[in-house]
């Protein structure tokens, strides 16, 4: 579905997030993170008890680190909580639940969530702490574990450029998890650096086709 009529305010966009929701947030650390949307979530939303799916939980007082300080995160699913010592402290204090996933499995599970794949077998993590509670199965002599898809109510992503239909183009390593998350949520909001006319991104250069994008917000 694609019905985009120009960008909306970030405060309006984050109104889609309700208490108890699962929210995906793009970015590798702060690179490619939708910082304007995160700020709006911090400042203009009361939603709490959130499950955050993001590679990191920001940095102390930056990005998702602000939301963490507000005590609005119930659970984090990430590959690297360690980049925010306050997130580590919150986990150790029992204030938030943490689910640690190897980064490639994290990415693949989000892709699976968007692609209608109910599970996949990966050798990564087999025989380690992170396989606890997961089904193991041997293929061609190699132990694999069954991983389930990740999905969210709302995905907040960042792209350098959008066209007016919502096609997205990412720059450099700011792409990371954003195109995956855009596919795996009920509602996807894209924060973008610029909005260009329809047709200005050639078909072969579209990284995220517009059917995945529900609303556009300009970076502040």
């Amino acid at each position, binding site marked *: *579905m*694609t*019905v985009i009529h120009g960008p909306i305010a970030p405060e309006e966009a984050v109104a889609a997030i309700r208490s108890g929701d699962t929210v995906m947030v793009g970015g590798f650390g702060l690179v490619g993170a939708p910082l304007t949307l995160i700020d709006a979530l911090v400042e203009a939303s009361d939603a709490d008890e959130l499950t955050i799916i993001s590679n990191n939980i920001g940095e102390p007082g930056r990005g998702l680190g602000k939301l963490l300080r507000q005590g609005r995160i119930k659970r984090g699913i990430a590959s690297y909580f360690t980049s925010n010592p306050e997130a580590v402290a919150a986990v150790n204090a029992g204030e938030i639940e943490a689910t640690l996933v190897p980064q490639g499995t994290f990415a693949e599970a989000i*892709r699976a*969530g*968007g*692609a*209608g*794949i109910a599970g996949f077998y990966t050798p990564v993590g087999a025989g380690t702490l992170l396989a606890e509670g997961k089904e193991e199965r041997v293929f061609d002599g190699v132990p694999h574990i069954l991983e389930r898809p990740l999905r969210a109510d709302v995905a907040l992503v960042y792209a350098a450029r959008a*066209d*007016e*239909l919502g*096609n997205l183009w990412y720059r450099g390593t700011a792409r990371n998890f954003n195109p995956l998350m855009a*596919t795996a949520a009920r509602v996807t909001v894209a924060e973008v650096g610029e909005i260009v006319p*329809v*047709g200005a991104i050639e*078909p*072969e250069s*579209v990284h995220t*086709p*517009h*059917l*995945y994008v529900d609303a556009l917000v300009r970076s502040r």
Partner: protein
Amino acid sequence: MDVRDRIAARAAQELRPGEVVNLGIGIPNRIPSLLGHDAGIFLHTENGLLGVGPRPMAGELDPDLVDAAKQPVTALPGAAAFDSAQSFAMIRGGHVDVAVLGALQVSISGDVANWAIPGRDVLGVGGAMDLVVGAKRVIVTMTATTPSGEPKIVRECTYPLTARGAADVVVTELAVFRRRDGALVLTELLGDASIEDVRAATAAPFEVELEDRRAD
């Protein structure tokens, strides 16, 4: 108007502005020429393009732009090209709003058989199963009966299944059926067809819940 065009025209009315629609070969392929330019529909073709435009003019044929029937198409401004895994990720993942497709049989519970005839022709499935399973809404377009008069809406499909319980809407030249609580229900009579005409052309009992046709 040709019977197939009438079916296509009625199916086209099911589509809403902004929707991403995948059209199968046959009757569904007649829809684009029936849609107004301002219909606001985005056509998806599973071989890797969202934003499929009209057939090219003579002399403007681009060998790198075809639809799933391998016929030449154009790409509209704002079109996106992608590989087959991404294309079917869209389909399987429920991001294509509507698939309009033909069928050989549809069961009264919405099972669809549209890819093979028993004993022969079981060597081509293409994207049929993916579309029927993955699209958010599946609209089947077909004549009510075969050329020899056999009803295509049946109790149980005897042709190989594409997917179970997948048809949301069935449009024939006689009627529109909608799946409710797991069963196809007659909701609209087309042309001058009567309920008895539809019963005669249908090999299964069905409920009738006629709706006012929306004005459009």
